């Protein structure tokens, strides 16, 4: 499982970080940093919640 960010869509609001703080962190300049691009299976639920929470649909989970 891999997290993909569409940088054209991401506005750096941080809804994903609120859902999954271990996976995402918005930097002080407003850009999104993915802390772990290949989350473990036990983080799937948090990762899916983060993807769902994004108001601009900038996140996708790709199965490896």
């Amino acid at each position, binding site marked *: 499982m891999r997290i993909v960010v569409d940088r054209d869509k991401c*506005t*750096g*609001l*941080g*809804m994903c*970080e*609120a859902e999954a*703080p271990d996976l995402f*962190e*918005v930097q*002080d*300049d*407003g850009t999104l940093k993915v802390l772990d691009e290949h989350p473990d299976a036990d983080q799937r639920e948090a990762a899916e919640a983060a993807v*769902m929470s994004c*108001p*601009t*649909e900038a996140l996708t989970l790709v199965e490896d």
Partner: protein
Amino acid sequence: MSVDTEFIPATSEHKPPHSPIDVSSKAFWTQTSEQRDERFARLRAEDPVSWQRPVEDAVAPDPNDPGYWAVVKHADIGKVSRDSKSFISGQGVQFDMLPPEMLEASQSFLAMDAPRHTLLRKLISVAFTPRQITRLDEQIKVAAREVVDSFAADPSGEIDFVEQCAEPLPVRLFCDMFGIPDRLREQTARAAGDVVSWADPERLGDRSAGEVIMGACLTLHGIAGELTADRRANPTDDLFTNLVQAEVGGEHLTDHDIGAFFVLMSVAGTDTTKHTSSLTVKAMTDFPQQREWLRADYDNRIKTGLEEFVRYASPVMTFRRTAVIETELAGKRVIPGDKVVLFYPSGNRDGDVFAHPERFDLSRDPNPHVGFGGGGAHFCLGNQLAKGALRALFSELLTRIPDFEAGEPDLLGTNFMRGVKRLPFRFTPEK
């Protein structure tokens, strides 16, 4: 107004007759939200994207206004909100027709599209990221505690909740973030309230809506001007300093840009949270078992609870977009120039998405409400701050004066904000 696109006028071509299920009348917007939802429910079932006559009794009526499409289903609100290529904000976002000079003075990036929207919004969004709000967490808790301190032990056990609790907290947090000195805080709060009160007869008194709105915008621009000048000379760590120092496309913001930014933020940052907390104590009075359920395990239950506070209150009722690309919406042909109005409280009562939408259910999960908008680039910037303030406030209330009862809210008569002017609130005082 967007500087990037040419203005596309509305047209009455290819339109059905105005819907007999009317949501444009002034009388409709003075009803309670429960009464209004009876009509929205009919539209959701019978005509989910309906062609409506122009809003009645507009502040600045346009004789050539042919009407608008009313979007009332949750899925369609999301579709329009997320498709900012087809549905733009640059031709205005208010449902009511307002004077252009008022819009110019108050809307800032709310009524812009990419790329300028993106650039301006980012200047302020960096102050609202989860990490920034976490840094503010202690400050928010102290503010909530002190607001509740001001009345919790009052032996009368009775206050006006809006004046003494719901308003002071967000006003204080907003003023702290912008670095507003104490002497200007009351004036700021009053003017921010006036900006959204254009259709409320009591608030207007003998003044016209235009006078009240423009007066409030001038007041806020004056405050912004004074603080902008000061921060240029004496930079500090508040948001005014950020705005003064910011560069967009290699240029500093003008005083007017900063003023409009400040008007937008003063409304967005104070009014919405005030109404949400007021409507929530009322909901907790009407659904006492929900209050008990939340109290029993506050820290673990407040996350879903907060989303339900916002869904149930739905304080922002309407925003508009303008179509610039021909699109089909629920079988209707929407063409360039058409106004499309999103009715968020209706989306939040959509039975296709929410089981028993009329119930205040703090365990509702998932809760994909549209109280912060239907998604897309204009999604509420301050949602994390709002949730932080509500979390801290209700922690205080439910710990210290859990035995409370809210009376009937006195509602603002507008088609924009589901606002509470006064709310009688009785409680067993803290010892």
